[in-house]
């Protein structure tokens, strides 16, 4: 007898329909799986055999052939355990279900017939909805991430037996209730809050601007100045994610297998901080299975590179194209996968090899050649893509610390950031741009018109402070964000002046 069961496969973060066909023939007992399965699928034979047996169903002692169609796309991962087992049970008439075509199965089995957590369930379900699948069985542990998908019936199941009984109309399950995304968001709490960071007013302000406009930011300062601490607080002021943004992020995290099964959906903007020994592949994605890299996991969030000059220069150079395009194309043997990678780059570095350049408290005796060499590790094109430079000093003013002056909390800052981001979303409605940092040259010309006074100031600044020409557009974009934070339609003189203040690396006094 022949049985056909629906399931799904995953390439990158896009799913495709797979049909599992099982056939029983007379002959010596044998179990074959064809249709480009990977090792995990080939090994599923043993899991399926035990799972069926331990669920008290009969395993046929005949010649079994299972085909995964279409046969020309490589299938990966253990999620085919459940559909294959179901197909076999239909063959042996353990399941009698007429409308099996309406069902889709995803899941890995354990030897005792229990379901195990699968990776990439969210993108599979999103694709399933688009491909017209109606009812999908998923492992129970993936319930949380699935609960945000509406327009499709989802059945989280704990064991093979539950599936069989539902199909046989013995114990009928209820489909999953859709959760409300907004409700989850209200319960947001952050571990790190700006109210615990004393002083550092200029750095905080720069981070607020950076969060509001999606600008790339670099913090420069001696060791122990609190750069990393500031960076850790960054997620607490990032603008709230929209549902679509959250789904995109969750898809990637689900594929990468870093999704928290309790929370289900990623409603916090991701904050990724790969160590400086990281390789180009872990950063951009790829490897044997073309997994998403750190920059894709940081999609819609922050990629934090601590001690930037310590990174391998070649590794850093790979960031240039995604920083510009917002996507990364990972090519491998079988196919090419495109992952989104719209992240905000947050970096920190010491000003010189010893780290104390410019500090009053500790002396720095690095020669200018040493400092040049240190800074030369960062290529011009990469530095070109960083909008804000802010200097953080490790000076601990005892009197500052002693005062009980209340620092602003992250929530207050985030409110302002959200307002500024809303203005931007309205401004760029209908275009690909979603924040000021991503403005095209055309948009800069339209939205960053300057008064004569401001124009003169910029001109003056360029002459007096030796700014480089490439800083011009960056200053305009940052000034636009500052104006948005001020809820001002036009860019005023003070906005430009502040934006110029964040270009310290361009100035000659550096070195």
């Amino acid at each position, binding site marked *: 007898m022949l049985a056909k069961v629906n399931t799904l496969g995953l390439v990158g973060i896009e799913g495709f329909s797979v049909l599992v066909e099982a056939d029983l023939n007379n002959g010596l007992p044998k179990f074959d799986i064809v249709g480009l399965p990977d090792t995990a699928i080939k090994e599923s034979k043993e899991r399926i055999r035990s799972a069926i047996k331990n669920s008290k169903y009969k395993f046929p002692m005949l010649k079994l052939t299972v085909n995964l169609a279409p046969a020309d796309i490589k299938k990966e991962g253990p999620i085919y355990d459940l559909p294959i087992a179901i197909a076999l049970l239909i063959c042996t008439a353990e399941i009698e279900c007429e409308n099996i075509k309406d069902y889709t199965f995803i899941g890995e089995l354990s030897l005792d017939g229990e379901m195990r957590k699968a990776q990439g369930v969210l993108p599979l379900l999103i694709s399933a909805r688009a491909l017209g699948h109606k009812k999908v069985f998923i492992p129970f542990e993936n319930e949380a991430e699935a609960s945000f998908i509406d327009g499709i019936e989802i059945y989280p199941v704990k064991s093979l037996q539950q599936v069989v009984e539902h199909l046989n109309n013995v114990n009928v399950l209820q489909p999953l209730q859709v959760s409300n995304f907004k409700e989850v968001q209200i319960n947001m709490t952050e571990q790190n809050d700006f109210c615990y960071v004393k002083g550092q007013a200029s750095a905080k302000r720069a981070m607020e601007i950076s969060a509001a406009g999606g600008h790339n930011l670099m913090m420069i300062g001696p060791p122990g100045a609190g750069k990393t601490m500031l960076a850790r607080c960054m997620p607490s002021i990032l603008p709230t994610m929209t549902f679509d943004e959250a789904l995109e992020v969750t898809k990637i995290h689900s594929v990468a297998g870093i999704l928290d099964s309790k929370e289900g959906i990623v409603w916090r903007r991701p904050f990724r901080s790969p160590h400086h020994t990281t390789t180009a592949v872990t950063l951009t994605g790829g490897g044997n299975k073309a997994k998403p890299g750190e920059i894709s996991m940081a999609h819609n969030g922050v990629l934090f590179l601590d001690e930037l000059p310590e990174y391998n220069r070649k590794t850093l150079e790979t960031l240039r194209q995604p920083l510009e395009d917002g996507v990364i194309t990972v090519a491998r043997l079988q196919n090419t996968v495109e992952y989104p990678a719209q992240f905000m780059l947050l970096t920190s570095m010491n000003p010189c090899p010893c780290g104390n350049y410019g500090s009053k408290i500790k002396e720095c*005796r690095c020669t*200018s050649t040493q400092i040049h060499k240190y800074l030369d590790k960062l290529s011009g094109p990469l530095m070109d893509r960083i909008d804000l430079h802010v200097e953080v000093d490790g000076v601990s003013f005892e009197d500052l610390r002693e005062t009980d002056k209340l620092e602003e909390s992250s929530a207050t800052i985030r409110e302002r950031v959200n307002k500024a981001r809303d203005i931007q979303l309205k401004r760029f409605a209908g275009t690909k741009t979603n924040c000021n940092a991503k403005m095209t040259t055309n948009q800069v010309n339209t939205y960053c018109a300057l008064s004569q006074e401001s124009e003169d*100031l910029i001109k003056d600044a360029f002459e007096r*402070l030796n700014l480089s020409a490439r800083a011009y557009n960056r200053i305009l974009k940052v000034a636009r964000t500052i104006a948005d934070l001020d809820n001002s339609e036009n860019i005023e003189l003070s906005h430009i002046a502040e934006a110029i203040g964040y270009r310290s690396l361009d100035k000659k006094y550096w070195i």
Partner: protein
Amino acid sequence: MDIRKKIFIWLSMSELELGTLYDMLAYFPRIEELWELEKYQGKIVYALTGDEFRSFMAIKESGELERVINDLETGNIGFVCYFEQNYPEKFIELDYPLFVVYYRGDISLLNGNNIAIVGSRACTRYGKEQTDRFSKELSKAGFNIVSGLAEGIDGCAHTGALKANGKTISVVANGLKSIFPAINVDLAREIVATGGVLISEFYPDYKPKGFSFVQRNRLIAAASEAVLVVEAGKVSGALHTVNFALDLGREVFAIPGNCNSSASEGTNNLIKKFYSMCVTSPQEIISQLNCTQNLKLQVSQSQNPIKRTDKISNLNETESLIYNMLQTEDAHFDEILEKTQIEAKKLLVLLTTMEIRGLIRKLPANYFGKKD
């Protein structure tokens, strides 16, 4: 070219010690005889060992000498031999005067009033600031600033003089065909363009070796009336310059540093042991030298030009508070924030505009200071 000049160039290219070469010359009252030397025989046997003789002859026989002479005849590197009229007088005071001084620019500068400003390559901001201040003031007073074109204090000494439209003398440790360190190539060009001079005791193609830097320091001391040490670590090349200067009877001044600063350990030691006079302002150097060397240099007037007052007059209250605060000492952004009690973003706007207007100066690590 005069055969004597050729011989002097030959002598300057030799790696033998100057003392040995002078001893050898004592055997040859007619210096032209050297040119005819072929075999290790005759008088030369008394002067040089066989190895020394062979290495000396190799310069001529390999054609190296001929090439250097051709280069000098066609190129833009000048040279002056010991017996010539325009040979710098100050170098004659050396135990063994150089056979040839190679130079680029105006060699007569060496006969003026020169003061050397030397110090460590690895210096601090304090060192750079003081070098700049002293170099400018001394330059304005009429001194030519002598230094070694190295990174750090040396480079600052040269640029300080250039900023004050003064002339500066750079004594380098390599041949003048290339400039070392490469970072100062532009500076070297500017020194020559503004009427200064680069001098070297080494022939144009010479590549610097460790000892050549120490050897060069002897010329820095010789070329100057006095030596000012700004910052020198416990072991610093600048201390060699001091030793040479003391040997030659030059005045030595040192700028004191913090007692915990490793960059000033050397200078503080000099002061402690009375090897040098402790100075804290350029005027002290000028009046001291006026006294001991009978110079008649003017102490320049107070540094603040009058034109800045009209800029200051239209400052508002906060601006003048910041302005006055920075006149006495550099301040960190947070300190200014504390004093002025205004919002961080507004303060940044204020500071940036003041910077653009040329009232204050931004320093590394978020410090602000007065405009110099």
